[in-house]
């Protein structure tokens, strides 16, 4: 049984009172185990920010229990929280660097808070700047850095006091795609090399796909599904079609897509989920022997942290029985669903 560092049990957070009350987090239960990267994905307003802030007590639940590193955070006095918070690093969407301090000063701040001596601070700051590849920027101020560099400083600062947990609050949402990849690989290294447990919230599927081990999809305050990243991506359920996974991945054609596809092609439209790409290509390769032709009209392959998967929508042309036979063969290699436009 792996050790749970973060455990939410029946957690609800309501803002406001009476008729104007808004439930930001609605009866959420989840646990994050030591050493894993747990992602929570959802559109903005889904309650992710409130949820992650309850881990270090920046927000308090209205009801339910939040246990972190063996402490009941939900009922802890504000004066007791600093001790727990110093074992939890946090990375923010807008970086939140101190403008009045240079890069070294930013990274050293949590060490000062934790009472490290000047000599140990200097050594640790050097080590961290090397880890994030910014040793040459130590004396610069935040406004002299690019977005990606700022976030690397943010990560160095969050890792400074050797925390057990790293909270990543939309850590790449303000960055362009290439810097996003850079920051994500840094988070993955922090997880792999330093063994730090990461809870990341995001609205970007890319983040989940490339670093998370497990994922929870959040919608209007609730966790609507959760599981291992690979399982969720490679095997989306029908009822999830309108949900976040589908929308963010664009893995299935929308009804507008289908209309457009219909203008240029005939034949049966099916979506195939691929979990084993070699088996699939061999089946697709036998299309001719079934007496049908097909074209790929939507979708493609994707890679998660440790496996690949994909969703392809194909238009199959040919006589009715041949098409049926071909689809039956496809069903042996993956899950096949008819697309109705």
């Amino acid at each position: 049984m792996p050790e749970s560092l973060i455990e939410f049990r029946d957690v609800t957070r309501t803002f406001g009172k009476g008729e104007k009350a808004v439930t930001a987090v609605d009866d959420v239960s989840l646990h994050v185990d030591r050493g894993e990267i747990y992602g929570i994905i959802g559109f903005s307003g889904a309650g992710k920010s409130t949820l992650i802030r309850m881990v270090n007590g920046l927000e308090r639940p209205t009801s339910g229990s939040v246990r972190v590193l063996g402490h009941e955070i939900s009922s802890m006095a504000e004066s007791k929280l600093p001790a727990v918070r110093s074992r939890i690093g946090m990375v923010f969407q807008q970086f939140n660097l101190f403008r009045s301090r240079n890069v070294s000063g930013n990274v050293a701040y949590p060490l000062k808070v934790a009472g490290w001596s000047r000599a140990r601070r200097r050594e640790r700051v050097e080590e961290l700047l090397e880890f994030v590849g910014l040793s040459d920027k130590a004396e610069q101020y935040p406004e002299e850095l690019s977005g990606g560099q700022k976030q690397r400083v943010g990560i160095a600062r969050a890792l400074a006091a050797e925390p057990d947990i790293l909270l990543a609050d939309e850590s790449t949402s303000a960055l362009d795609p290439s810097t996003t990849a850079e920051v994500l690989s840094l988070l993955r290294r922090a997880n792999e090399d330093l063994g730090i447990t990461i809870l990341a919230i995001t609205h970007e599927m890319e983040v989940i796909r490339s670093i998370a081990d497990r994922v929870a999809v959040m919608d209007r305050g609730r966790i609507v599904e959760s599981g291992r990243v690979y399982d969720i991506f490679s095997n989306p359920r029908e009822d999830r079609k309108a949900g976040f996974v589908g929308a963010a991945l664009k893995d299935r054609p929308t009804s507008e897509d289908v209309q457009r596809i219909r203008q240029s092609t005939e034949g049966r439209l099916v979506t195939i989920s691929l979990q084993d790409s070699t088996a699939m290509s061999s089946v697709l390769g036998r299309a001719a022997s079934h007496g049908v032709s097909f074209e790929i009209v939507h979708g493609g392959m994707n890679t998660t942290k440790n496996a690949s998967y994909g969703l392809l929508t194909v238009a199959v042309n040919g006589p009715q029985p041949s098409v049926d036979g071909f689809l039956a063969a496809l069903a042996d290699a993956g899950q096949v669903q008819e697309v109705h436009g």
Partner: protein
Amino acid sequence: MIDTYRNLDWGYIGPALLEAIGDTIYMVAWAFVFGGIIGLVIGLTLYTTREGGLLASRPVWLLANFVVNLIRPIPFVILIAALQPLTISVIGSGIGNDAVVFVMIWASTFAIARIVEQNLVSIDPGVIEAARAMGATRLRIVLTVMLPEALGPLILGYTFVIIALTDMSALAGIIGGGGIGNFAIVEGYNRFRPEVTWLAVAVVIVFVQSLQMLGNWSAKKVLRR
């Protein structure tokens, strides 16, 4: 023009002017030190106790806000008169430079409180959240995050106040204080010697300009742009 000043009775006017400058610096400096510190504390109170603030407390905020709003609009001359009993009981006298300093402390405290509050509001709340997330205590956040982050604008705000204090100190003469304002009225205006009044004008211009330049320079240095 040059002859007018060459023929001035410098043996009398010179020392009188120097004494006036000394009085002005005395009044402005003491009022600035006390008003600056007390005003900072009240300004921090206004900022941290507001809704969603670090020490959010509606009763404390309401009280602080009420007092600031009550005192701040009172014209300085009226404040001098209104505080007379308090000034006498605290300073021991209702006249002279120290009495003026006492009233100036009141006026500058509440002006500074508002200026401090307004400058702190411009701090990115995310930075404060980051410090909280690192486990910094609230006192540490005030001292090592809020004040450094707002230092540049705060310096400009304080510069504004020190110039306002120079303005207030010019009224010292009405309750027996000295200073440049008193010099301009007593030695210049009352004796129909505009050339002496203009000396006071020149001194005040140099005084205020130097302070403003010093303030701008320090703020720029802090903001690094």
